[in-house]
């Protein structure tokens, strides 16, 4: 029997609210399955199970806010007999959960489901496959929507109408009243998120002795390679420059692993892989940096797909707990209309953050003459407890080298 506790999904998370259980007692679960959707200051996050087993009981109601570490549910391990609570474990005074006892359960179940004299059996709502998937992405229960499709099925349009787009509304209609329904359902609270960012960044500056290095890198080859790549492809297969920068950084961290990991209990713990946290700014204010796992082993098209997927889910709600817990380093980029350079603040307990400024054409010395080249300013903020400038310099040099051979990324 194991306890499933409310996970900490960020340095300063203190409480979370279970908004939706995705399992019930008796559901089999395996590692990676989403057990519940928890509302935090980072928005609605899908919390994954880390073990295999069967859900024995749910200990928290939907809508209940509980602190990090609180008991959310209990699981029976695979093959475990229906267990008593282990001695010494905090015992919840609740009725023992329905066991997988032999005859008793099956005999009970049909009677419970028998329609005679009972309320109408659960009617099955027809939902189209595309609608079902979109509803899951948006965190809506499609069964609660009115279906306008064939045989009354809930369609994509019905799911999208549940969160109407401002543009699609005919101009004559009045605007929504003050509180947009989306925020209450699936979004994040910008004020809470602001507070969380404030707390995390303050802690970072309080505790982490930062050092800063910057370097200007020539992206001529990379930009040329990208243009040629994209020219041959339809828009949905094209790559953004960010993907090239991400891959080069991920590979460079493989060569300088002292910058990929965590400072914990007075020592550096290397990360289990290069799980790049990509800083995504959220519309309406707010910031989250979920992980792209094993970015060093991912191809450029797959990185692009992962990026697109993450950005979509970060904004719509639907990030997973592993994506928030796992980043081993963070990359931030203000994009083409931001600043020339960005010098970031490290997210504890990570030990580095790499910042990319705007890619802009500038004069550069090439073979003794001046040419215009697309240049980018790259910064590294490092935790001086875990590494020194020399190491940081090696990382920047490695990134530069990798960017000069884009075809090898």
């Amino acid at each position, binding site marked *: 029997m194991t306890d499933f506790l409310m996970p900490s999904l960020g340095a300063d998370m203190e409480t979370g609210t279970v908004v939706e259980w995705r399992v019930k007692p008796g559901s089999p679960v395996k590692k990676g399955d989403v057990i519940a959707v928890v509302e935090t200051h980072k928005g609605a996050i899908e919390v994954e199970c880390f073990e295999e087993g069967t859900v024995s009981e749910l200990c928290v109601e939907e809508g209940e806010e509980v602190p990090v570490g609180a008991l959310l549910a209990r699981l029976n391990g695979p093959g475990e007999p229906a267990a008593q609570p282990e001695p010494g474990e905090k015992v919840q005074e609740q009725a023992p959960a329905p066991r997988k006892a032999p005859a008793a359960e099956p005999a009970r179940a049909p009677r419970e489901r028998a329609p005679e004299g009972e309320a109408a059996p659960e009617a099955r709502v027809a939902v189209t496959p595309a609608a079902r998937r979109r509803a899951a992405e948006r965190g809506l229960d499609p069964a609660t929507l009115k279906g306008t499709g064939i045989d009354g099925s809930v369609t994509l349009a019905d799911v999208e109408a549940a969160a109407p787009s*401002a543009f*699609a509304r005919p101009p004559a209609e009045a605007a929504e009243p003050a509180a947009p329904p989306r925020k209450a359902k699936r979004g994040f609270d910008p004020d809470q998120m602001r507070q969380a960012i404030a707390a995390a960044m303050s802690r970072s500056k309080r505790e982490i002795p930062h050092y800063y290095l910057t370097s200007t890198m020539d992206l001529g080859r990379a930009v040329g390679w990208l243009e040629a790549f994209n020219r041959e492809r339809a828009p949905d297969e*094209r790559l953004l*420059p960010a993907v090239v920068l991400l891959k080069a950084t991920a590979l460079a961290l493989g060569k300088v692993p002292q910058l990929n990991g965590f400072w914990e209990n007075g020592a550096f713990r290397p990360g289990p892989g290069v799980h790049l946290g990509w800083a995504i700014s959220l519309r309406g204010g707010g910031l989250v940096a979920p992980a792209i796992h094993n970015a060093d082993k991912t191809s450029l098209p797959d990185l692009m797909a992962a*990026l697109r997927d993450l950005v979509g889910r970060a904004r719509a709600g639907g990030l997973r707990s592993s994506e928030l817990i796992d980043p081993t380093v963070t990359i931030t980029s203000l994009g083409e209309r931001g600043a020339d350079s960005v010098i970031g603040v490290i997210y504890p307990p990570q030990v580095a953050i790499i910042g990319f400024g705007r890619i802009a054409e500038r004069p550069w010395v090439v073979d003794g003459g001046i040419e215009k080249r697309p240049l980018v300013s790259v910064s590294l903020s490092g935790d001086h407890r875990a590494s020194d400038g020399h190491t940081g310099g090696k990382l920047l040099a490695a990134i530069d080298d990798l960017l000069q051979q884009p075809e090898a990324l």
Partner: protein
Amino acid sequence: MTEAAIRKLAAEVLGDIAPEAEPGTLSDDEDMREALDLDSMDFLNFVIGLHKGSGVDIPEADYPKLFTMKGVVSYFSRDSG
């Protein structure tokens, strides 16, 4: 495509990308990346949405023609077939 169809398609695609934006606030001449705070991923998603909805190929070199609604309308009217 007709102008009405182009505007409808663009509005739908933008609605997915910038759902919180106020209707009717984007003027035809405004650079929508500024007005709607679209980053390069958002703009690429916009191009993809237009490409899929119209079947017209959009080379990277043409992206600047699509920064304003006026540009979008003129681009797809030109390519109408």
